[in-house]
């Protein structure tokens, strides 16, 4: 029984305390929770944990090994940065739900059995929803409702999968499952996929994250999808299907990100793209692949958090997130601009920035396994990331045409939070072997800084940047799509605008059509449902006593006939 303290409980207790406090004391206590908990977590080693018996089965609600520890450290850092960021912009609701949310994420990664995982999986859904609702606009309330419905659906799928898996195999252990062990395993796989934002299951992410509060989005970007990545890495490493799912995830968001105007939604799309790299790494399943996937998850929390923080600061100060309304903010928010560019450089995997040392692991792992087509897609996706997250975000927010907005620099607490993230991005990117590589699940003999790696990456980046500049100058932007193709014959350049305009128009109309069509069907279904079950319907009205008695007689007749035959 308990010989080690579960960090989730510290977070939950902290949340309770925070709910009772107000003002500065509240912000301070909230900030101390991850620090205190980190002290305990650093003392943990592989093999610690508890087992309990529940409904007559042995469960392991707390299990510590290298993989879960890595995510444990990561979530403490993320929670600390998020709460620091919330020093000024947060309120009681956001601090409490942020702490509960982080605690649930910790509970999920330290879960050693599927029941415990399910419990925290659902807690993760419920607690995070309040960060979306916390913005208190009608849009965010509706978006949050759609979000929690899908999240709970994922939880129910997980529960169904768990029960079937249990009936099939008699095991509730949360370790390697693999797709081969029947329907239960497939349902669990699907449940992870929903939280992981696989293609066609991803809409909840791009729908809700941009609607959350500035603080909320920073929290949201750190936990839910990373828990899913952790769960996949734990239960389905080496599943080949994941390689293709991941490749699709890296590629498709790029098209949407380019045509999107809400800059936080651009980041949400780029998030799916980054998770794609992790999913590919898990699908490869080699030691290098898994290392790359979790290392990238670690870095992604930092640099995506940084980007969301910088955009959140812009939203906090200007009240808008539309690229077309922003621009020229570097004059009034110079420090935020610098941090945003550090984040942009990291996500684009510039050498010496954190994205480089983890993304290249995944790409190399793909090459080792000779998935050439996938490798090509990843290269395309890398160029795409640089384009929409690396250039578009800082360019439209801080440079481009001057919107004339003159605001104050972001609050100090936000700047400090961003500074910590930015420092971590650069430090990990520059000295990976003394920081990140030491806590990875498998021993690392990978060297990121070889001439080939650096040169390949620089080529992609510089050509991508060149493409952006040229397209911008020749007035062809925004429909620019294929920056990698610049060096092919010039006649393609003439075709390019036409093709890309066509694709752009198609993407736009088809999205509108799907939205409108889907909504119409939903509305019809809703009306039919209400007609059947609403207060005025036959089923819900108060019936005359005689009719009820008649029903009893009819039912008796049915029983008698059925029994006699």
């Amino acid at each position, binding site marked *: 029984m308990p010989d080690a303290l579960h960090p989730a409980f510290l977070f939950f207790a902290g949340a309770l305390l925070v709910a009772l406090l107000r003002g500065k004391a509240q912000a301070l206590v909230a900030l101390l929770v991850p620090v205190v908990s980190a002290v305990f977590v650093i003392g943990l080693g592989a093999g610690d944990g508890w087992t309990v018996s*529940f*409904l007559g089965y042995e469960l392991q609600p707390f299990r510590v090994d290298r993989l879960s520890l890595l995510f444990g450290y990561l979530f403490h850092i993320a929670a600390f940065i998020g709460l620091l960021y919330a020093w000024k912009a947060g309120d009681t609701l956001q601090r409490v739900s942020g702490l509960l949310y982080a605690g649930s994420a910790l509970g999920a990664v330290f879960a050693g059995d599927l*029941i415990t995982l*399910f*419990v925290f999986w*659902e807690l993760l859904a419920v607690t995070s929803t309040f960060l979306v*609702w916390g913005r208190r606009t009608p849009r965010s*309330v509706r978006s949050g409702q759609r979000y929690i*419905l899908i999240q*709970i*659906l994922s939880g*129910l799928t997980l*529960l*169904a999968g768990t*029960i*079937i898996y*249990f*009936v099939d195999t008699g095991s509730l252990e949360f370790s390697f499952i693999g797709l081969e062990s029947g329907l239960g395993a497939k349902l669990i796989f699907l449940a992870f996929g929903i939280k992981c934002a696989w293609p066609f299951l991803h809409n909840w992410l791009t729908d809700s994250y941009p609607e959350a509060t500035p603080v909320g989005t920073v929290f949201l970007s750190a936990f839910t999808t990373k828990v899913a990545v952790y769960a996949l890495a734990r239960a389905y490493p080496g599943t080949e299907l994941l390689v293709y799912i991941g490749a699709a995830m890296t590629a498709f968001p790029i098209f949407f990100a380019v045509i999107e105007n809400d800059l936080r939604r651009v980041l949400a799309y780029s998030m799916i793209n980054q998770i794609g790299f992790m999913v590919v790494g898990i699908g490869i399943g080699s030691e290098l692949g898994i290392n790359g996937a979790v290392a990238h998850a670690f870095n992604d929390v930092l640099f995506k958090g940084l980007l969301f923080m910088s955009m959140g600061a812009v939203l906090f100060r200007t009240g808008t997130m539309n690229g077309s309304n922003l621009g020229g903010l570097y004059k009034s928010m110079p420090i935020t601009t610098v941090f945003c560019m550090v984040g942009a450089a990291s996500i684009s995997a510039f050498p010496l920035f954190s994205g480089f040392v983890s993304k290249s692991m995944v790409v190399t792992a793909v090459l080792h396994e000779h998935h050439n087509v996938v490798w090509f897609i990843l290269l395309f996706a890398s160029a795409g990331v640089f384009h929409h997250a690396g250039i578009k975000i800082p360019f439209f927010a801080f440079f481009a045409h001057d919107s004339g907005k003159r605001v104050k620099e972001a609050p100090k607490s936000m700047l400090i939070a961003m500074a910590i993230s930015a420092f971590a991005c650069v430090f990990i990117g520059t000295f990976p072997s003394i920081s990140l590589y030491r806590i990875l699940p498998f021993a690392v003999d990978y060297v990121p800084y070889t001439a080939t790696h650096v040169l390949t990456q620089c080529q992609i980046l510089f050509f991508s940047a060149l493409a952006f500049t040229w397209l911008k100058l020749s007035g062809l932007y925004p429909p620019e799509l294929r920056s990698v193709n610049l060096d092919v014959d010039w006649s393609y350049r003439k075709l390019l605008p036409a093709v890309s305009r066509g694709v752009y128009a198609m993407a736009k109309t088809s999205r509108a059509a799907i939205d409108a069509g889907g909504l119409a069907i939903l509305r019809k279904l809703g009306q039919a*449902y*209400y007609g*059947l*079950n*609403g*207060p005025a*319907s036959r*089923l*819900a009205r*108060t*019936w005359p*006593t005689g*009719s*009820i*008695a008649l*029903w*009893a007689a009819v*039912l*008796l007749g*049915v*029983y*008698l006939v*059925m*029994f*006699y035959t």
Partner: protein
Amino acid sequence: MIRENLPALQVVIPLMAAPICILFKNGRAAYGIALAATLFAFGAAISLLTQVLGVGPISYELGGWAAPWGIEYRVDYLSGFVLVLVSGMGVVVQLFSPASIKREIDEEKHYLFHCAFLLCLTGLLGIVITGDAFNVFVFLEISALSSYILISLGKHRRALTSAYQYLIMGTIGSTFILIGIGLLYMMTGTLNMADIAARIGPVATTRTVLAAFAFFTVGVSIKMALFPLHLWLPNAYAYAPSVVTAFLAATATKVAVYVLIRFTFTIFGEHFAFEETPVATLLMPLALIGIVVASSIAIFQKSVKRMLAYSSVAQIGYIVLGVSFVSVTGLTGGIVHLFNHALMKGGLFLAVACVVLRIGSDRIDDFAGLGRRMPVTMFAFVVAGLSMIGVPLTVGFISKWFLIQAAIEKGWWPVAALVLLSSLLAVAYIWRVVEIAYFRKPPEGEDRITEAPVSMLLPMGALILATIFFGLNTEATAGVARQAAEYLMGAVR
């Protein structure tokens, strides 16, 4: 002496206390008597259950007349479990009642409330403890007649018509049950349950016994409000005084389910009921349709009490579903949900009673802003609501776990999926209340609304704690339920 006669005292003490309430004709004195009698019943029930768990089923001959001629009281795992549930809920509701009935029932009728409450409790306890088929009918009538009185005490004028409708339907139900018992007596010449079970074998396939079973099943379906015979329930629950609703929702329909389980498994026998007749194939679809339809109707209700009433109809569906699996796991799920649902629905109705006390209405729109005005009450509502949805760490999860496992054991995937997906309907109707209470601004000038008095919060809190406690510690509920299920299933073999 007391220990030996505990099975009789279990019923006799509340029965004797009821007329004493009338003699005093005073609300306060009646309350004291009722509370004392209920507490005694609870203590007796716990003591009986521990005895059963220790030494096995207890048989008690009333007045020293040996069964099958005399009336036998019989406490086994299932009846001990249900006795504790019913009397426990009685204690909670009695403790809760004074402040609530002060607002909802006329002062001069208070002693009548306590008297009717005791009679209702007597009837329910009697149904559970007796080992005599005709005795079941007698107690059924005692509990039903007193619950008509309880419902008609409501101040709303529709309370009377609702009570009347319940009276008609309840009487049809008990008449059907009586016809069933009569036909059984005709064929076996005995009324003692164990005796009938022993003699039914040779005559089991006769049309008379089949007709008896049909009458019995339909009659008890009315009593437990199984879809589509639930139509009396929503109005009765909506217009009765809140404490009455809480008590009836937590006990009356549960005891009807107990009667179903007792008769089907102990008297008719698993073999006859489920192999000679297609009763499982009839009950299961009704249970499933009931779950979906009643939950859907609940989503659109404007009154919270009515909404919870429809949710009760759906929950009865889950319990009957568990029974209709005819497996130890399924029966365990049904029995454990019988207990769990009583806890959470009792908690929900008590929370609504607190709201009614303060704002005088249970309309869902009037809940606006209550999250801040009545934080404890609404928190209790949320916890019990989460349990209704089946969230882990609450009792609702335990029930669903067994039900789904039972469905998968049988390989009935669609049923398992339906049980799981129907949780989303519960999310919808619970969420509506939570959203309005926490996210909608209260109307102007409603600042004077304050939290309910401690005398109400404590009993309600006890129920809420129980939904968490039994969600974590499953030994007491699921353990006993499994023992009961194994005993029932094994009784035939």
